[in-house]
């Protein structure tokens, strides 16, 4: 059983699933729905980056994945805080 083939299949499946989850970002009725879609897409992109790192045997992808996780967390926090301020004023 070829390891690279399995990893490729998983990466293709996750790319399709991420494209599916951006539909909610596009059609979400409220800003929170868009945030939910964004959170889901960010977690799947994180999984894709880790799979690529294991497939290519390069640790650079893992650094990118760590920074992406941190920036996604801080970004969603900042967007939620910004919406809250806009609501309160």
């Amino acid at each position, binding site marked *: 059983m070829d390891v690279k083939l399995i990893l490729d299949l*998983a990466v293709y499946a*996750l790319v399709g699933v991420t494209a599916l989850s951006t539909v*909610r970002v596009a059609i979400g009725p409220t800003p*929170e729905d868009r945030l939910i879609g964004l*959170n889901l897409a960010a977690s799947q992109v*994180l999984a894709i980056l*880790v799979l690529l790192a294991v497939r290519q045997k390069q640790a650079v992808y893992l650094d990118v994945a*760590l920074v992406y996780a941190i920036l996604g*967390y801080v970004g969603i926090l900042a967007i*939620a805080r910004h919406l809250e301020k806009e609501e309160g004023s």
Partner: protein
Amino acid sequence: MTWVAAGFLALGVFFGVVGNFGVLRFPDLYTRLHASAKCSTTTVVSIFIACVLLEGFSALSGRIVVIALFFLLTGPVTAHIIGRRAWMRGVLPWRRRRAL
């Protein structure tokens, strides 16, 4: 070991597909948040377990464990922030319409 890793990868892809269908199909913000939070955490953790099993004991797998711990910390916090913001804004939970 490769078969176990392939099983975990298939589990991760399955949870991703199920979570996306939940986010697309559920009627309400809170139910969508439920589907999104659970399925994103299980997807990421099972795929990371598969990667660690494929990689063995090396520098790559150590970093993968660190990223998994960080994701396990921040995923529920993000879901809680989104849900709390929606609750503060006054979004009411969905109820099944029932004949009185």
